[in-house]
């Protein structure tokens, strides 16, 4: 089986030759950058270097999928947010101040797909498609409505509004929904085989589960609507309190951190949902050793994980041997 067939087998509820191993989020590390001779910040900005760095997930590490982009700022930038470069070592973030306040009426730009670095992102996907000849899965990343809304009005005001004036969040959630949906469709047209949505601000670490259910869930569902490839939904932290609703958004795959229970996700979402996840990316994959990574990965699999993955985005300083240790565990299953 090639890498893509392996992942698709799990999605079709068939038995793969071994457990797939890849990530819903970025897996770029400094070591991989050296190996492929493509660096940051250019990997966040230029299609060619972005593609080179994404390829490393397959050619250097041996994962079953590659993924672009490596930060969470593409939609926000195209919608008017400033971006603060992370330089050669860091990940770009949203600059302050945010372009809107909650009392504003945001306007969706007609030329959304040609704004900011989106053209470079699409270029990267086209390069990957050519290089990988359909043997390795290409994942296109989008950002969830709540997280985009947080970039547009700033996270703390949005959190306050979630209790005080939740209706004021709607125009911004709608912007986020539309942006992610449009970007997903463009990524698929460019060659993406799967869409991964990161919605870090919708974590129960930050918002109440009822905010997810009463607001975010509908926008997330709408964002996934009309997307004909398999979709991953990734929300950071312990999502036990919302996992049942995550399973109703139309995502075929849920990507979980080890803080969340895969067993509970299975109970709440039923037999069809595919669960991916694995060890904590900061406290284990980055900080600890091969033995700890292996033990943690086995634990996740025992909990019901079907596709082994870093629990969230890989920290760029993560040692290669720890990524390889994860892959080794997947190969033994």
């Amino acid at each position, binding site marked *: 089986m090639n890498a893509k067939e392996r992942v698709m087998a799990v999605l079709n509820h068939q038995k793969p030759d071994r457990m797939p191993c890849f990530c819903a989020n970025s897996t770029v590390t400094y070591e991989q950058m050296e190996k492929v001779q493509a660096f940051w910040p250019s990997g966040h900005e230029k299609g060619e270097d972005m593609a080179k760095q994404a390829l490393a997930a397959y050619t250097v590490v041996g994962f079953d999928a590659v993924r672009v982009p490596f930060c969470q700022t593409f939609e926000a930038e195209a919608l008017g947010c400033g971006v603060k470069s992370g330089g050669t070592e*860091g990940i770009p973030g949203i600059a*302050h101040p945010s372009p809107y306040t909650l009392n504003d009426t945001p306007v969706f730009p007609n030329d959304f797909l040609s704004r900011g670095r989106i053209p470079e992102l699409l270029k990267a996907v086209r390069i990957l498609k050519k290089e990988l000849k359909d043997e390795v899965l290409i994942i296109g990343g989008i950002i969830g409505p709540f997280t985009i809304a947080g970039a547009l009005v700033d996270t703390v005001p949005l959190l*306050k509004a979630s209790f005080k004036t939740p209706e004021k969040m709607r125009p911004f959630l709608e912007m986020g929904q539309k942006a992610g949906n449009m970007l997903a469709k463009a990524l698929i047209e460019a060659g993406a085989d799967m869409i991964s949505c990161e919605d870090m601000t919708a974590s129960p670490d930050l918002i109440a*589960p009822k905010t997810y259910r009463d607001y975010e869930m509908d926008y997330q569902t709408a964002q996934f609507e009309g997307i004909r490839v398999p979709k991953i939904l990734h929300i950071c932290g312990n999502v036990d309190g919302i996992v049942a609703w995550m399973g109703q958004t139309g995502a075929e795959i849920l990507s979980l951190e080890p803080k969340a229970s895969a067993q509970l996700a299975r109970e709440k979402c039923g037999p069809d949902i595919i669960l991916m996840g694995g060890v904590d990316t900061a406290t284990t994959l980055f*900080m600890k050793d091969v033995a700890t990574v292996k033990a943690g990965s086995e634990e996740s699999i025992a909990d019901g994980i079907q596709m082994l993955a870093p629990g969230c985005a890989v920290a760029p300083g993560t040692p290669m041997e720890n990524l390889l240790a994860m892959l080794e565990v997947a190969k033994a299953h």
Partner: protein
Amino acid sequence: MKILSDFSNIFKRYDIDLEKVGQAKQISKDPILQSIAKFVVEGDEDGISPAVDEALKTKTPLDIINDALIAGMNEVSRLWEEGVYFLPQVILSSDAMNIGIAKCEKAMGKSMERKGKVVTHTAEGDIHDIGQVIVNALLNANGFEVINLGADVPVDKVVAACKEHRPVMVTGTALMTTTMTAFPKIAHQLKAVGLDIPFICGGGAVCEEYVTSFDLGVYGKEASQAPGMAEDALTGEKWSAMRGKWNG
């Protein structure tokens, strides 16, 4: 009794099997102070201002601060720790409390007396300041003066603020593996200038092992530990002793 025409709402409410139910306790027997505390517990930033103005006619500013505003915030911390309240509510309550405290301080013509200063910051290059916002709120609610340096603060600025303010302790929050590396640098510089104060480091990216690998470092797992740690520092407890007490 109100007649319900739409039952969908009721059903919606009861499927949250994972949300805990709980209730705020009564905070003061005095009805005026209780009503002020309620604005804090409910995080009502708009309501609290006129209510404090009204209360100032019959109560001293200090009683309002201690027995209503701060007492209300302590109740909010309790509800948050028990999982009844969520992060946005803690932020709203803290803002309401601060509005109330500012009113009372204006009425007193001076700042309320504080136990001691604590410098707080989020690491250079890191904009994840929500953990710090909570730490600030809880320290404030426990009578400490918070020197809030905000997010994305350069190492030198943290050290300079400690030199200037001579706090009982300093805190750092980092959620990224790329930014937590500022902590040992800060600790090193603080030592170099003879400021042997506890440096409490917390935030998603750091763990006990990392923070206790450099001098001055004490690991803060939960924001709710911050006031207790500050109390210890206030009594002159050294970072090494605090490490023994708060860390494994």
